[in-house]
């Protein structure tokens, strides 16, 4: 009795899709993050180069990683929500029949 989900949820038919999408986006971000670490270790002086608005690569890459995380998260949520709606519509149609 004590060990169960906190609330019984409706069946989520989009689990497979969301899981694959999540892994894909995780890999994309992990590669870019690894690139940041690699540049810092392999050629740290490259980080001093001024890139845009007078900001150096270290700041642009650092801010970029933070902003890119948010963009990916919003895209992920949009795609997941669309998929969940599609599945729930299909389920509702199936129920009406």
């Amino acid at each position, binding site marked *: 009795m004590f060990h169960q*989900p906190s609330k019984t949820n409706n069946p989520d038919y989009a689990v497979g899709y969301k899981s694959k999408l999540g892994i894909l986006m995780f890999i994309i971000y992990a590669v870019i993050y690894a690139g940041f670490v690699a540049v*810092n270790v392999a050629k740290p002086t490259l980080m001093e180069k001024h890139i845009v608005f007078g900001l150096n690569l*270290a*700041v642009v890459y*650092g801010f970029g990683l933070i902003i890119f995380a*948010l963009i990916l998260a919003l895209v992920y949520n949009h795609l997941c*929500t669309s998929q969940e709606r599609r599945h729930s519509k299909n389920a509702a149609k199936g129920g009406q029949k």
Partner: protein
Amino acid sequence: MAFIIFAGFVTFVLFLSFYFARQTQSASGFFAAGGQIHWAVNGISFAGDYLSAASFLGICGMIAVVGYDGFLYSIGYLAGWIVALFVVAEPMKRLGKYTFTDALDSTFNSPGIQLAAGISTLIVSICYLIPQMVGAGVLVTPLLGLPHAVGVIMVGTIVIIIVATAGMKSTTYVQFLKGTLLIIFSTILVIAVCQRGLSTEPDQGGKKPYYDYRKIPAMQQNGTIKPAAAGFTFAAQQAHTTPQGELIVDFVKLAEKDRFTWWKVNKKDETIELLETASETIRGDGSRFINGIENNNELQLGSLVQIAGKSGKEANTGSVGIFKLLSLLSDKDTIVKRWKKAAVFSDGDHMVTLFAPTETPGNKIMRPGLQFKVEGTILQRLDFISLMLALFCGTAALPHILIRYYTVPSPACARKSTIVAIATIGFFYILTLYMGLGAMVNGVVNPLSDNMSAPLLARSFNTFLFAVISAIAFATVLGTVSGLIIAASGAVAHDLLDRFYKLEFNERQKVIIGKAAAFTVGLVAIILGIVFQGMNVSYLVGWAFAVAASANLPAIIMLLFWKRTTAASIVASITVGIIAAVGLILISPDMFERYGLMRSQAPFQLNQPGIISIPLSFITLVIVSLLTQKKNGQVAAAE
């Protein structure tokens, strides 16, 4: 004023706890706020949980002292949320009830997992509690004039009351409030920093005259260094003897008309000059002197020597934009004066601590290298990689973050609240760079404790901002400690006593046990907070992340994505991960220094264990899974 705002805030938080206490009668209410928190509120509360003393005090403090290297923590902490969102959030919600052990054990019902995961939650929570409690002590000293230990005891007591009265619900609303206020007032502080602009003679908006540390000529006479400038007389000196028997004078104490000051001896070819140091002297009677003047305020340092090649009045920039500020500070012709501890010694019954300046160009301040030696030896570079790995992997394995997935009604809400958290936390982390650099160049860094840089920066503007920022920082500690104590109490009451030992408690008893566990963990946290006084809180959190990532993440990931994972392999992975991470920290150079031993004597020469302990935990899980396939035939169905 600081005290009134601070006391008002704490009173309100306690009122909130007692208000929600009436609604918290069940175990679900205590451990998971009944699973009914709105995702937007939960998202901000995530930020409240996550933006701990480490983020606010530790990162800003580290940036103020070592520049961009401190910002690496911001990047790593935020990147960790990607793992939480894309990999962990929804499955955790689907599989668990109150604790992450529930999720791990959802397909096995294994006592071994319950025990290992429960203990792991306890250890990680305590590792994470240490820096929070250290942060509490750091805050209370300048705010209320109380000793470090009193601050720690005070926070511990308030948090125990918050948790023991209303559990997760009050904790959530405290976090929500704190998260919101933190973002608002940090933004105000950053705007103020940009409006003040940069100057080579920072006078805190005219409130505190800029003190220019002096340089005078000197000469050597019969083994002593004497000043060759009017108004100074020799008083004492600190010297050491080389192995060849040569006497080297390091520091000289000079008498001026109204005070004694300490000077660093700088020999260049045949000429000798004395550089004034920043000093703290504690006399035998307990009186405290800063730069030779009796003073109980903090020592505050840090300024620019040159801004893009200019110095003096013509260097003043006036108000600058957010990009211009960073651009000027990263200029190679901008020079930052940073202060490092140069010596600690006794002079009669006086205990003297000296800080000497070093000048660092802006291009080096604004890229990694001052703290993490990315241009150093292979081991030093591995240390950096290890830290970045632990920060990336640690977030999604922190127990107090994982339990917040059970406070929302559905997996979709868990996902949405994570996105709100990423937006809020990401924005705050960008602000940390401005707050840290603002402290670095505005003469507000206390070299005895860099953790106070952000609040002291606020004080350089006005007392109200300082009081509010300090109250928020204190709430930051309260909120995070509450979340951690709930996680630890859940591990004891739910994972260990209820599920592992199968003690049959009714709902009311479960809540009582949870509260008793919260009380005990709170006491442990108080003791550790006193023991670890003086360490940078963000640095300590880096270790907590490494322990969490090593102990918990491999088990979570493999359970979700590798169908051959077995119960035995999860137990083995958690056990190996936690022993390896904690063990390697205990034999690291930083800990050897803490023990009073030589850093070079440490058997493990990395300070960050993640690069060894995380892969080791994964490998253990795979090997044990393969070895135990036929034996028990357990196959995890990930979804």
